[in-house]
C-alpha cells in the first residue's frame, strides 16, 4: 500500500506549485481538521469574467492533504465559481489516484471543503460540502 504515497503525491507535497497567499484576493477561507491538526487557507483571485485567475494555499498538514490542495488549485485554473461549486469528493480521489479510508479521506477533502465554503461565501465549512 505504498500506493498511497505515489510519486505524484510526494512530488506535489514536496514541491507544490500553488503554495502561498494572495493579497488582495476575491475569496479567502481557512479551516482545520481538528483530528490531526491539518490547517489550510485558500486565497482565490477572479478575472473580470468571473473565472479563477490565480489561487494559492497555505497552512500545514500531511502529504495527502497538502498534495490534494495543490492538485485541486491546479485543476480550478480558469474555472467559474459555479464550476468550483460542482466539484465533489470523487474529483479529488481521481486527482490523487488512490483509495482512502474514512480517516485519511478527511485529510484529502479538507482543501475542497475550504475552497467550496469560500466559493459559497459561508461563515463556517461543513462536511456536507464535500459529500457526494
Amino acid at each position, binding site marked *: 500500500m505504498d500506493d498511497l504515497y505515489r510519486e505524484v503525491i510526494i512530488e506535489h507535497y*514536496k514541491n507544490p506549485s500553488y503554495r502561498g497567499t494572495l493579497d488582495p484576493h476575491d475569496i479567502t477561507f481557512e479551516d482545520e481538521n481538528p483530528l490531526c491538526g*491539518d490547517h489550510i487557507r485558500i486565497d482565490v483571485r477572479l478575472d473580470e469574467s468571473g473565472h479563477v485567475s490565480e489561487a494559492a494555499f497555505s497552512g500545514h498538514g*500531511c502529504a495527502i492533504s497538502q498534495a490534494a490542495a495543490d492538485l485541486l488549485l491546479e485543476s480550478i485554473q480558469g474555472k467559474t465559481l459555479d464550476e468550483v461549486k460542482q466539484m465533489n469528493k470523487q474529483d479529488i480521489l481521481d486527482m490523487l489516484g488512490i483509495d482512502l479510508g474514512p480517516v485519511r479521506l478527511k485529510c484529502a477533502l479538507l482543501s475542497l471543503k475550504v475552497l467550496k465554503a469560500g466559493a459559497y461565501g459561508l461563515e463556517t465549512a461543513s462536511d456536507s460540502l464535500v459529500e457526494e
Partner: protein
Amino acid sequence: MSTHLPLDIDRVRADFPILLREVRPGVRLIYLDSTATSQKPIQVIDAMDTYYRHSNANIHRGVHTLAEEATAAYEAAREKIAHFIGAEKARQVIFTRNTTEAINLVANSWGRANLKDGDLVILTEIEHHSNLVPWHMLAGEKHLRLEFIPVGEDGLLDLKTYQDLLEQHPKLVSFTQMSNVLGTITPTQEIIRLAHQAGAVTVVDGAQSVPHFPVDVTDLDADFLAFSAHKMCGPTGIGILYGKEALLEAMPPFLGGGDMIRKVHLRSFTPNELPHKFEAGTPAIAEAVGFGAAVEYLQTIGMDCIAAHEHALTGYAIERLEEIPGIRVYGPEPAYKGGVVSFTMEGVHPHDVAQILDTHGIAIRAGHHCAMPLHEKLNLPATSRASFYLYNMKEEVDRLADAIYHVKQIFG
C-alpha cells in the same frame, strides 16, 4: 521497586490472540498503540463469553439463579478492583463508563456541591482533554479560576510554580499520574501531600498509570482516582472512580434512575447507599466481569514485572529512535517516564509516518492525542506516538526503527 522475575514474553504473547493476526497477507501486527487502548488476553475474552453463555441477567433485583450469579459476578469484580488499587472498601469503587465519565462525576457531583464563585482549581499543562473540559464546563457555570502547573523543557512539572499556586488556597488539584503524550510520571504522592497541606482535594487521572505500574490509593492518600478498563487488558465501556468514603458519602448523586435510589415517590427520591448511589441504570455487567478478569490477569503477571519490562523497552526504543537522523523524541529522561515515546520526523507529517508504518503492520498513533494544549505548548500541530505494554518485545522496536528508515526513504 521490589524484586521480581523477568516477564516471560512468549507466555504473555500467547495470551493475546490478536497478536497472531496479519494486517495484510504476510505482514504480522505489531501493536504499539496501547496508550490508546490495550489488547485483551484470552482470560478476559473468556470471562465475558462465559458470563454471557451461562449467567447473563440483570443485577441487584432478580431473585432467580441467573440474577444471583450475575450480581455476585459484578460485585466480585468490584472487590477485585478495590484490592488491585489498595482501596480499603469495595464500596469506594464506583463503576463508570470510563476515566472521562469518572472525572465528570467528580466535577458534576463534588464540584457543583463544593465549588463556588472565584474558587481556584489547579490543573496541569500535560492533561488529557478528559481532565480539562469537565473543569472548563464547570468553571463557566461556577465562575471558577483555573490555573495550570507548567511543564518544563525537561518534560517534568514545575513544582516550584505549583507551590506558589498553592499559596492562593486552591479548593481542588486535579492532575494526571502519567502523561499520555510525554510519558511523564508525575510525583503524585508529593503533589497530593502538598495539596492536602493547602487544604485542597485531589483528583488523580490514573488512565495511563494504573494499567502500567503499581498504584495504591492508600499510599498515595488520593481523594479520587479515575481510570479505564480498556487500557489495562479489560473491555471498553467501563471505568472506575475511586473516592475516599467520607467524600463520596457527602456527595449528591450524579445521574438519576434505577439502582441509584433507595425509595422513589412521585415527587421525591431517597438516594441509595454507596456505591450504588452513583450507578444509575443497568450497568455494563459483562464488562465489569471482564474488568475483574483483567486485574486478576495483571496481578498474576505482577505489576512490578510489567513496569520493569516496559521501562526496558522504552529505554531501548528511545535509544533506537534517537540514532535516526531527523527524529526528535519528546518527554523526560527514561527514569521519569512510562512506556510512551512521542516523536516527530523532520519534513514528514506524523499522519504520513503512521500511515507508512501501517504498511509494515505497525500500529502507532498520530495526532494531538487528546492533549491539544500540550501540543500548543510544544509548538507542534501533532506528534507520532509509539507506546508499549506487557506484550511488546525488543524485536518490535527494531521493526519500528527499520520502518522509520523506510519512511525517510519514501520522502527522500
